[in-house]
């Protein structure tokens, strides 16, 4: 039953949502969808709690078994507990909470994202070599778009930004539509497997 109940809940909910979408059930249908949306919001709140529990279990396991780089798990646990205590004591909009969020969490987030620029540059330098036709096309498009996206491109090659726009708008759109259609069909097939109970990996089995 522990494994079957989630499958039944998913199948029944999915059938209700699809029925309401494709069959005009009037006020009853609208009320049903609204109720399900509210449930969905509440479920998300619980998912956060579940996430915190899982994270604690994972890092506690790393520390207690002294797995490689377990010191980072200690830092993660301390940070998580400290943040939780500060928020509970000081409130979500409290001065200390806002200070911690703005001056520690946000700064770390910004710094990590900014570092990506350096890594991308280094990775491009080491790996972007004209080894074959495909690599040449990729490198050519990349250089052209880099120039097109920066004002210096138009200063060196007037009108290059328009060429960049065309590449993004025409060949790129064509490729993206294909990818989107493929992904959509894939998601549709995966959803049907979940509804029919054929795909059960999400239950942990």
């Amino acid at each position: 039953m522990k494994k079957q109940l989630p499958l039944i809940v998913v199948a029944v909910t999915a059938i209700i949502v699809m029925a309401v979408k494709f069959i005009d059930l009037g006020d009853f249908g609208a009320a049903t969808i609204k109720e399900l949306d509210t449930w969905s919001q509440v479920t998300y709140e619980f998912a956060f709690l579940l996430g915190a529990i899982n994270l604690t279990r994972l890092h506690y396991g790393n520390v207690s078994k002294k797995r490689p780089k377990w010191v980072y798990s200690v830092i993660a646990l301390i940070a998580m507990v400290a943040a939780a205590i500060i928020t509970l004591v000081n409130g979500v909009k409290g001065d200390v909470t806002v200070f911690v969020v703005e001056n520690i969490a946000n700064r770390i987030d910004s710094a990590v994202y900014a570092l990506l620029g350096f890594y991308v540059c280094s990775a491009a330098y080491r790996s972007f070599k004209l080894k074959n036709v495909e690599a040449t096309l990729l490198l050519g498009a990349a250089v052209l778009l880099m120039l097109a996206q920066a004002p210096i491109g138009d200063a060196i090659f007037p009108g290059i930004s328009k060429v960049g726009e065309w590449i993004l708008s025409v060949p790129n759109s064509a490729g993206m539509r294909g990818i989107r259609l493929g992904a959509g069909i894939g998601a549709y097939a995966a959803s049907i497997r979940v509804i029919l109970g054929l795909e059960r990996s999400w239950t942990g089995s």
Partner: protein
Amino acid sequence: MDWEKLQHIDIRILYVIILVCLLIPMFKPIGLPIAISDATRQVYETIENLPDGSVIWVSHDTGPGNAPELNPMITALARQAFRKNCKIIATAFFNETVGPTLVYTHINEVAEEMGKEYGVDWINLGYRINADATMKLMVENIAEGALGVDWQGEPLDKFPIMQEVKSIRDDVDLLFVTTVGSPGYSDWMQYVAEPLNKPLTGGASLTMYSGLQHYIRSGQLKGFLGGLRGAAEYELLVGAPGKGCAGMDAQSLGHVTIIVFLILGNIGYFAAKKQRQQETY
């Protein structure tokens, strides 16, 4: 000459050169002219063509990492909207901690400058968990989706703007979304823009630009601001160059540095290959 070395320049040297190239324009701007793209012009014209006093829904769905790219878009949008006496309803569905503060700060800065009042001309509803479900609730009843309070927990009943704007379906004229992923344009299209036939426009980080082009071509997205470049172009159209334009010189030098290193790496690759062939024979 050992051409192999050209392929293996110490990465720390590369990092220092990039850093210097990004810093120079901050102290000594070059001021290169910025060409306006069709996608940016379409965003500007879509907003400009709204009747005065329209209601614009602004969702700043970003986190701290992408904020420097997207914040200037919000500032410029607020300027254009308030100039037309439009009302703004703001949300931030991506990041609970920083999104609501960012959208408040950037709209409030312009609002104070232009004499617009919080709660009368604009409001910030902040973050709500499960964006998809919240959007669907707000389509019929904004207060219900926002749980009856603004981003600071103040009851919505006390704000005059919320007496006029009750639902997205009946009272909102345009959606302006800046996003870095999920929730993204597909969510806004699926649950709000397409079912209600509301115009949707906005911007996103440059990394998302290529993935959204087909929405622009299909007309589902009324123009698009692509990254910092898009923000800079929009600032120019609005007539208030700001942080977007300021970052353009750094972007120019950054891109040129990467291209120079790509060329060096390839020269090293081919020269070393030729050298090896000659040594073999």
